[in-house]
């Protein structure tokens, strides 16, 4: 079956003061209908840029140099702005990261919700909008759906009058009100306390299940990714390092970066790794071949010469590393120095 969203070989450069930053380098990603996918990685790995590219919300200094983003048979990168209006906020919606800044402080929750509802199907925003019966009913329905305790009261309140969890719920309502097919959730709940984060994640998971939504979670929190997603994309330095079903990637990681990342997470069993040496690559002058090579404990000669491509190393498990050959090619043995010429942490 045709996936809902397919990103192929997406390359994005940003013009910066220091020069041309190659922030995305051949990113691939697919989301099937009804599937929940998590894009995980650390600060600056390009996960938010990927989401913004899907929605056509890239900053003005960004330039798409290659690739395509196909959503239901149409390439979003080659669609005129007019047509994007019909997709953004309706077929694809986004829940933004920080509930305290993503809402407009000078409008009430109701005004912001009706604004989105009135947008549905309209080419331009209506002037002199009135909250008619149907629109208001739709707003109440959606506020109840995201379990806001007092929808009538909340409708007339300003964002400052709401708690963090309630604001997050309003943001979810704003994203769901257009009945999207694909939901992009950027760091959902990570700005909230654990007990509230837990409620929100469970509720969204339930909404997704009952509504048949597809979701792209963008997160740096591996525990959250494990809780919510079916498949995980691990991103490093603007590239996809590893793709695997969520349950499997937490048991065994193929890419050395995923291994290092998982090892660094503090465990309830009372163990905690040492972290990964070095720092994220400089995007203006990235390492020539494998972008993880300077930090990799298993680096070999070839890692500096040829860029590893994302290959299916095991059934349903894709990895971009020279340690793993494509299925059928026979395994390559990990040889090479184990970080002898290792640079000290972050001193680069």
């Amino acid at each position, binding site marked *: 079956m045709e996936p809902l969203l397919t990103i192929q070989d997406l390359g994005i450069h940003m013009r910066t003061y220091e020069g041309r930053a190659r922030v995305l380098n051949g990113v691939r990603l697919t989301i099937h209908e009804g599937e929940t996918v998590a894009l995980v990685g*650390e*600060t600056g790995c390009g996960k938010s840029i990927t989401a913004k590219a899907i929605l056509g919300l890239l900053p003005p200094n960004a330039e798409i140099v290659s690739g395509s983003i196909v959503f239901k048979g149409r390439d979003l990168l080659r669609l005129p702005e007019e047509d994007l209006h019909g997709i953004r906020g309706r077929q694809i919606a986004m829940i933004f990261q920080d509930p305290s800044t993503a809402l407009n402080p000078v409008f009430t929750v109701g005004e912001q919700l009706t604004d989105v509802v009135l947008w549905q199907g309209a080419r331009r925003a209506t002037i002199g909008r009135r909250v008619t019966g149907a629109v208001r009913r739709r707003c109440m329905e959606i506020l109840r759906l995201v379990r806001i305790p007092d929808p009538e009261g909340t409708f007339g309140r300003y964002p400052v009058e709401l*708690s*963090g*969890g*309630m604001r997050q719920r309003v943001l979810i309502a704003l994203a769901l009100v257009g009945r999207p097919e694909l939901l992009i959730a950027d760091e959902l709940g990570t700005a909230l*306390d*654990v*007990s*509230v*984060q*837990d*409620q929100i994640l*469970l509720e969204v998971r339930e909404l997704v299940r009952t509504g048949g939504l597809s979701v792209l979670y963008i997160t*740096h*929190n*591996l*525990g*959250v990714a*494990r*809780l919510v997603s079916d498949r995980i994309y691990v991103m490093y330095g603007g590239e996809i390092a590893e793709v695997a079903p969520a349950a499997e990637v*937490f*048991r065994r990681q193929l890419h050395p970066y995923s291994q*290092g*990342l*998982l*090892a*660094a*997470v*503090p*465990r*309830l*069993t*009372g*163990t*905690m*790794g*040492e*972290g*990964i040496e070095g*720092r994220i690559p400089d995007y203006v002058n990235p390492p020539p071949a494998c972008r993880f090579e300077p930090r990799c404990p298993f680096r070999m000669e070839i890692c500096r010469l040829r860029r590893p491509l994302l290959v299916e190393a095991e059934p349903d498990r894709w990895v971009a590393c020279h340690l793993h050959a494509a299925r059928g090619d026979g395994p390559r043995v990990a040889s090479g120095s184990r970080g002898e010429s290792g640079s*000290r*942490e*972050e*001193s680069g």
Partner: protein
Amino acid sequence: MGLVEAEGVVKYFPITQGFLRRRVGEVKAVDGVNLSIKEGATLALVGESGSGKTTLARVILRLLPATSGRVTFDGCEITTLDDGALRPVRQKMQIVFQNPASSLNPRRRINEIIEEPLLIHRVGTPGERRRQVGELLERVELPSHDFMFRYPHALSGGQRQRVAIARALALSPKFIVLDEPTSALDVSVQAKIITLLRRLQRDMGLTYLVISHDLSLVRNVADVIAVMYLGKVVETAPVATLFGAPRHPYTRALLSTIPTVSDEESALIPEKITLGGEIPSPASVPPGCSFHPRCYARIEGCDRVTPELVPVGSDHHARCILYDRAAINTGEEERPWSSHWALRR
């Protein structure tokens, strides 16, 4: 007797109204906390935002005056000391803040930032201070010749936090408060910083008070944990006891919501309990047990009786009516509390 002792510490912030700043209420940020931190140990304060963790730490350091209660540091009561007498004590206690991007002055070079505490306390000659700054940078594993004359913006988040730690170490303190020391950092960097902090503790015999909302992290760094809810400590125990046999309903719920990354961990956490609602504002604390509106193990009397922190095991205390027999009207037979829990699970 611990290096740091807090007895009945209370901190209320007044809520004022109108031109005359009439007092109309108070925010009960910290409401009667007793703590004791042994020398060389790490105590972790955990809780949700608004539970009073940071305020308590600030009162302990006397960055804020206490409304009432006593804080003793190294056998000397500091709640009543005047500014002059406090100066030498201040050298021995330091703090590392949450966000290194905002806790370092962007207009000062790294060497100036680290030297500043030495200047304030008039330690050494310029030459000695320069040498000391170099040593401190090496201690936090930053090459001094590279970093000495840079500005904070030229450093990564992890490097900045190392500078903040070097600054806290400048006066050779005995006690350091670490307020969410790694929450602004990525996991791979967090692991490096925690490794460093542990080594410093071992080498220099430091005592830490760690404030964190990340329970998996706390599991790895703390010796003793105190769980706070709305200005009160609701449970305190050595780390293994607290994670192995949590007693307070809030602690259990908190532990059950930890997102884990392996099956072994998932096996360790209690059965899933999802709390309804959110932590109320400390300006309007619910009557009785302040947790009762969200509590899933609520019984008759929770909304009237304020439970005390009572022992529930060795070094293990909890503030819950289920364990506080004095809080319940005696007269009825002793209730089988353990079976009560068994029923709930």
